[in-house]
C-alpha cells in the first residue's frame, strides 16, 4: 500500500488514547509489587483467558499465518495447529501448581525447595534468552509492519512502539498490561470474525466452497501438504515439540497465572484462552484461503512484507478502506500488547529474581522493589528499541522458532521436574536450564537456519563439516538433553534438603496458601 491511510492512523490514535487512559487509571492503583507484577491477584479467570490470548497471539499468528496460507495453502495451517497444542499441556501440567507455588515469576516455582541463588540466576538466563529473542522478533516485525501499514519510517516506528509499551509497563504495571491485552484480544477476535464473515458471505457461508474455489484457481496442491514448510520428518517432529512444549515455557505467559486469585481461576483462564486462541486459528483457515482467492497470490507477494499484508489486503477487498484501516490498527495493537507482556516478565526476572532474591537475599522494602522493577522495565524497553533498530532488515523469521525452542529446552524441563520429581536438585535445575539454552543456541548456529539461510553458505559444502547439525529446529535434541542432564546431575549429587522439601511442594501445589492449615505443617494459617 502506498501512501498513508488516514483512517488507519485515526483508529491507531483512538487505540493509543484509550490505552493511555487505562494506564493512568491503573497507575493510581499500582502501589505495591503485588499490583505491579500480578495486578493485585484481582483478575477473573474469564478476563485472564482473554488477556492470555492477547499476550500470546502475536502479529506472527495473525498476519504471518494468513500470509503463509495465502501463499502456500495447507502448509501454513501446520502453524495454526502447532501454536494451539501447547495450551492443553499448560492446563494439565503447569497452570494450577504454578499459581499455588509461586508469587511473581516461574523461577519462584523452580527455586521453591532448592538453593535460591544458583537456581534463580539460571532461571533468569532462561527467561532473558526467551524474552530478548522474542522481543527482537516482535520489534523488527513492528518496524516493518508499521512501515507498510502507516508508511512511517522504520526507526521512528520502532521508537514509538518502544515508548508506548514502556509507558504501559512503567506506570500501569500488570493491571494496565492486562487491560491492553484484553482490549487487543477483543479487537483481534472481533476483527477476524467480521473479516471471515465478509469472506464467507461471498461463498454462501460454506468454507468448503471457498477452499474449492482456491483449488480451482491455483491447483489442487494448495489443499495438500507441500514441501515448503515441512522439509523432513525429524524437522517436523522437532518443530512440533518446540511449538507444543515451548508455549509452556514462555515466561510472559506463565507470569499471567499470578494475576488470578487462586488455582481454580488459573484453570478456568487456560480453558478460555484455549477456546479463544483455537477459534482464532480456525478462522485463519478462512482468512488465508480468502486472501488467496479474493486478493490473489500475486497481489499478496507484490504488497511486500513476505506475505504479511494478506489479511489487511483482504480487509480492503471485502470491507473497503475503512475496514482496511481498522485491521491495520488491530495489527499494531497486537504487537504492543505482546511486547508489553514480554517487557514486564523480563523486568520481573531482573528485579524480583536477581535483585531481591539473589543480591538482597530476599530482604528488600516494597518501595525499593518497585523502583528496581521500574528501572528494569526502562532498561528492557531501551534494549528492545536498540535491538529493533540493530536487527533492521535482517531475516528474523527464525527468531520465533528459536524462542519456542529455548523455552521448551530450558524453562519447561526445569519447571516440570521441580513440580513433579522428588529427587530433583539445585544443580540438576541449573544444568537443565543452562545446557538447554546453550545447546539450543549452538545447534541453531551449526544448523541450516544460520549457516545456509542467514550466512548463505553452500549447503553441499557446509554439510560436510564435522560440526554441521542437519535440523532446522534443534528442539528434539536439546529438550532431551535438558531433561537427561537434569536427571543425571540430580542422581549423581543428591540433595537431601531438596528431597525433604518435596512433600511441602506436593501439598502446596494442591492447596496453595491453605497448605499452612493442618498437619504436617504446624504454623498457624497466615491471613493471606
Amino acid at each position, binding site marked *: 500500500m502506498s501512501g498513508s491511510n488516514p483512517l488507519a492512523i485515526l483508529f491507531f490514535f483512538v487505540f493509543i488514547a484509550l490505552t493511555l487512559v487505562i494506564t493512568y487509571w491503573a497507575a493510581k492503583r499500582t502501589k505495591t509489587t503485588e499490583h505491579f507484577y500480578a495486578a493485585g491477584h484481582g483478575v477473573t479467570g474469564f478476563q485472564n483467558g482473554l488477556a492470555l490470548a492477547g499476550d500470546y497471539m502475536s502479529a506472527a499468528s495473525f498476519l504471518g499465518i494468513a500470509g503463509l496460507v495465502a501463499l502456500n495453502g*495447507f502448509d501454513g*495451517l*501446520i502453524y*495454526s*495447529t*502447532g501454536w*494451539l*497444542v501447547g*495450551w*492443553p*499441556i499448560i*492446563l*494439565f*501440567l503447569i497452570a494450577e501448581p504454578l499459581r499455588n507455588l509461586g508469587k511473581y515469576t516461574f523461577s519462584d516455582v523452580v527455586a521453591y525447595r532448592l538453593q535460591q541463588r544458583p537456581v534463580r540466576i539460571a532461571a533468569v538466563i532462561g527467561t532473558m534468552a526467551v524474552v530478548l529473542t522474542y522481543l527482537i522478533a516482535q520489534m523488527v516485525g513492528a518496524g516493518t509492519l508499521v512501515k507498510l501499514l502507516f508508511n512511517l519510517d522504520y526507526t521512528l516506528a520502532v521508537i514509538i512502539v518502544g515508548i508506548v509499551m514502556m509507558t504501559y509497563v512503567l506506570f500501569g504495571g500488570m493491571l494496565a498490561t492486562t487491560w491492553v491485552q484484553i482490549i487487543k484480544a477483543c479487537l483481534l477476535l472481533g476483527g477476524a470474525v467480521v473479516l471471515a464473515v465478509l469472506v464467507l458471505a461471498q461463498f454462501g457461508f460454506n*468454507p*468448503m*466452497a*471457498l*477452499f*474449492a*474455489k*482456491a*483449488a480451482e484457481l491455483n491447483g*489442487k496442491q494448495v*489443499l*495438500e*501438504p507441500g514441501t515448503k514448510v*515441512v522439509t*523432513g*520428518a525429524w524437522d*517436523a*517432529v522437532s*518443530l*512440533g515439540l518446540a511449538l*507444543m512444549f515451548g508455549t509452556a515455557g514462555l515466561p510472559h505467559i506463565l507470569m499471567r497465572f499470578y494475576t488470578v486469585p487462586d488455582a*481454580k481461576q488459573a*484453570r*478456568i483462564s*487456560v*480453558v478460555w484462552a*484455549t*477456546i479463544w486462541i*483455537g477459534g482464532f*486459528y*480456525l478462522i485463519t*483457515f478462512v482468512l488465508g484461503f480468502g486472501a488467496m482467492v479474493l486478493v490473489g497470490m500475486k497481489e499478496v507477494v507484490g504488497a511486500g512484507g513476505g506475505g504479511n499484508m494478506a489479511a489487511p489486503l483482504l480487509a480492503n477487498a471485502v470491507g473497503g478502506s475503512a475496514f482496511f484501516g481498522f485491521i491495520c490498527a488491530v495489527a499494531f495493537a497486537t504487537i504492543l500488547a505482546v511486547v508489553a507482556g514480554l517487557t514486564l516478565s523480563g523486568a520481573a526476572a531482573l528485579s524480583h529474581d536477581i535483585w531481591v532474591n539473589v543480591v538482597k537475599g530476599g530482604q528488600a522494602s516494597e518501595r525499593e522493589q518497585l523502583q528496581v522493577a521500574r528501572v528494569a522495565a526502562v532498561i528492557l524497553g531501551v534494549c528492545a528499541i536498540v535491538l529493533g533498530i540493530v536487527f533492521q532488515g535482517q531475516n528474523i523469521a527464525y527468531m520465533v522458532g528459536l524462542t519456542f525452542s529455548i523455552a521448551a529446552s530450558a524453562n519447561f524441563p526445569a519447571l516440570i521436574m521441580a513440580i*513433579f520429581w522428588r529427587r530433583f536438585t539445585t544443580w540438576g535445575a541449573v544444568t537443565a536450564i543452562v545446557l538447554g539454552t546453550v545447546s539450543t543456541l549452538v545447534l541453531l548456529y551449526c544448523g541450516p537456519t544460520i549457516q545456509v539461510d542467514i550466512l548463505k553458505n553452500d549447503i553441499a559444502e557446509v554439510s560436510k563439516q564435522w560440526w554441521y547439525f542437519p535440523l532446522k529446529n534443534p528442539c528434539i535434541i536439546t529438550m532431551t538433553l535438558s531433561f537427561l542432564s537434569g536427571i543425571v546431575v540430580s542422581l549423581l549429587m543428591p540433595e537431601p534438603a531438596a528431597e525433604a522439601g518435596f*512433600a511441602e511442594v*506436593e*501439598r502446596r*501445589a*494442591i*492447596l496453595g496458601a*491453605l497448605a499452612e*492449615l*493442618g*498437619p*504436617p505443617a504446624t504454623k498457624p494459617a497466615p491471613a493471606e
Partner: protein
Amino acid sequence: MSTTDPIHAIATKRWTIALILSVLMLVIYLGFILLVAFGKGLLSILLTQGLSLGILLGALTIVSCWILSLIYVFWANRSYDAAVAQAIAQAVARTTTPAGRKP
C-alpha cells in the same frame, strides 16, 4: 510423610490424569505432523469438493485441544475440587478440635 496422607493420594491421582491427557495430546499432534511429513498421499484425498483430509484433520486437531481441555476441567471441577475440599475440611477439623474451642 505417611502413604495414607490424603493430599499425597490426590497428588498421585492428579498427576496420573494429567499425564494421560498430555500423552493423548502429544500422540494426536505428533500423529498429525508425521502424517503431514510421510502421508502426503493420504492427506491429499479429497473428501468432498474443496475439503482434503489434511484440512479436516488440521481442524480436528484444534477441536481435540478443546475436547481434552474440557475433559480435564469437568474432572477437576467435580472430582478433584471435591476431594481437595474434603481434605482441607479434615485438616481444619484436626487442628481446631485439640484447641477445645467448643461452645
